[in-house]
């Protein structure tokens, strides 16, 4: 099984709200001292891919579209034991729209060659777009199943389990296929071993430019023509919390209970 896992590098989403600033001019978050990290759902996707490879064999290629900094995301993927790493260099708009991204990923995947499965995260932790998987499937002309949390090899095709609003669905699918991966208790990303981290530093990374993969590089560099961010702001919404008071725990819990009843009875 040839698996391609698409990884997005994002501003650390754990930056506390009190340290979060935006650049209204550039219409993006100010990086400040925050790290760039791999989007958590991409790591869930890579973890799911690694577990599938343990059962079925095959190769995993990690694919990142980012500036040079994207190398870090690929080194981490190699340390987690992806087989190959491909970086498509973004030397244009820092946040191209989702169709531009899907277009680039599709072109890179065609360049990489045959694949059975493309795995992406259900959504990214910065812009939370949640579209790349679906658009990529359309660009590649293959089916797509979203919110997947498990894949197995069945007798005639893949058996894919995905989460729904109140439970789950199982699908049988032919390959090639695109899936978007969501989190569950079994795909929490593994921590790479120190030895593998050291080894990953020496592994090769394939670098591709926009001009090499056969896309309209000028349009991608400009950010695409699907949609545009016209405004960004930080909502002001602070409530003052009334901490229950009292001399004893009993008194405080009593007050807490009374507040609960007060609110529920008014509903």
């Amino acid at each position, binding site marked *: 099984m040839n698996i391609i896992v698409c990884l997005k590098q994002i501003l650390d*989403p*754990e930056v506390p*709200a009190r340290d*979060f600033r935006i650049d209204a001019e550039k*219409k993006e978050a100010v990086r400040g001292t925050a790290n760039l990290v791999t989007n958590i759902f991409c790591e869930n996707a890579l973890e799911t891919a690694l577990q599938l490879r343990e059962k079925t064999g095959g190769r995993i290629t990690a694919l990142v579209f980012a500036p040079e900094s994207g190398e870090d995301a690929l080194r981490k993927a190699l340390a987690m034991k992806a087989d190959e790493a491909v970086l498509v260099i973004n030397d244009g708009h820092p946040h191209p729209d989702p*169709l531009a991204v899907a277009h680039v990923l599709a072109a890179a995947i065609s360049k990489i060659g045959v694949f059975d499965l493309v795995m992406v995260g*259900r*959504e990214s*932790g*910065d812009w*939370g777009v*949640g*579209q790349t*998987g*679906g*658009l990529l499937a359309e*660009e590649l002309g293959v*089916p*797509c*199943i979203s*919110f997947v*949390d498990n894949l197995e090899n069945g007798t005639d095709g893949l058996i894919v389990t995905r*989460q*729904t*609003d*109140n*439970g789950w669905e*199982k*699908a*049988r*699918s*032919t390959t090639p*296929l695109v899936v978007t991966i969501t*989190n*569950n*208790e079994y795909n*929490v990303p593994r921590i790479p071993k120190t030895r593998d981290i050291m080894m990953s530093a020496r592994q090769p990374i394939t670098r591709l430019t926009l001009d090499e993969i056969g896309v309209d590089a000028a349009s991608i560099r400009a950010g695409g*023509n*699907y*949609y545009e961010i*016209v405004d*960004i*702001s930080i*909502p002001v919404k602070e*409530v003052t*919390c*009334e*901490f*229950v008071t009292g001399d004893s*725990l009993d008194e*405080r*819990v*009593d007050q*807490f*209970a009374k507040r*609960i*009843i007060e*609110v529920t009875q*008014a*509903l």
Partner: protein
Amino acid sequence: MDILIISFSNSDYDRAAQGVAGAGRNLATVLGGRLRAVVIGPGNAAMNSRLAAVADEVIVADQAELAEYQPEIFLQALTSICRDAAPAAVLFGNDTYSQELAPRLAHRLSGSAAGDGIELAVDNGAIRVRRSVYGGKAVATIELKRSPAVLWLRARAFEPAPEKDSATAAITRPAVDLSMRAPTQIIERKSEGAGEARLEDARVIISGGRGLGGPEPFADLQDVAGLIGAQLAASRAACDSGWCPPSWQVGQTGKKVAPGLYIAVAIRGASQHMAGISDARVIAAINIDADAPIFKHCRFGIVEDYKNVIPLLKEKLAALQR
């Protein structure tokens, strides 16, 4: 230009569907077009007639191939219906199926999609949508550059559509060629807690986080929930630990809930969690750490180990309810 709203017939004309219809009606009025409702899936006459009371036309896609949700076939059907209707916008709710299909539908219609919208506007003829970004820490306005705009909406953020005074809408049934061989086939489905009220509709929610330390305390939270008619929910950290099913997750990538009261127990209050409860009326918290960000959103709270609070709270609530 007309506006299409899409409803899946396996649900009801619930608050989410009403919000989508409301958003659609406003947009149709601004753009001077009709509001046309599409109901897709097995026949649901009740839903058709509820929509006929608020929309100008109801397009029912209930042919045999659509008897149960299959992504590729539903996508094909919607593509065909939308191509014929040539709308300015296609609006969905933010359920699983909608989120799965909307971007692909946009691609097939050469339009643009954007999701989790909380406000819609028209500026110089272009459709704009507001949504939260950066894990709920900021809000952005996005302008769709291609038509139609295919949007999925945080439906409860929109007022329900008003009923029309005039006659109810005509119901049409287009014939769509769905004789394709689908490469993927859903072969089994399971709903957990079927019959229970949906979390999205809960009036009171008690939610547990990583600070609970294991699955057992959820049973104690269930006792508290029973006393005040609450439903249980959880943070991503608690779900990822396997302490409760994934469908309990509330947040940016979980359920978006809007209860009158949300009680967060041992939940830090990360922005991604708060993104799921921005529509809650009152938030209360039990947390051992007075500096936990959750308290910045709370109307009232108690700083204490939950282990000391819950048993007493059960007693007190039981006594007060008597």
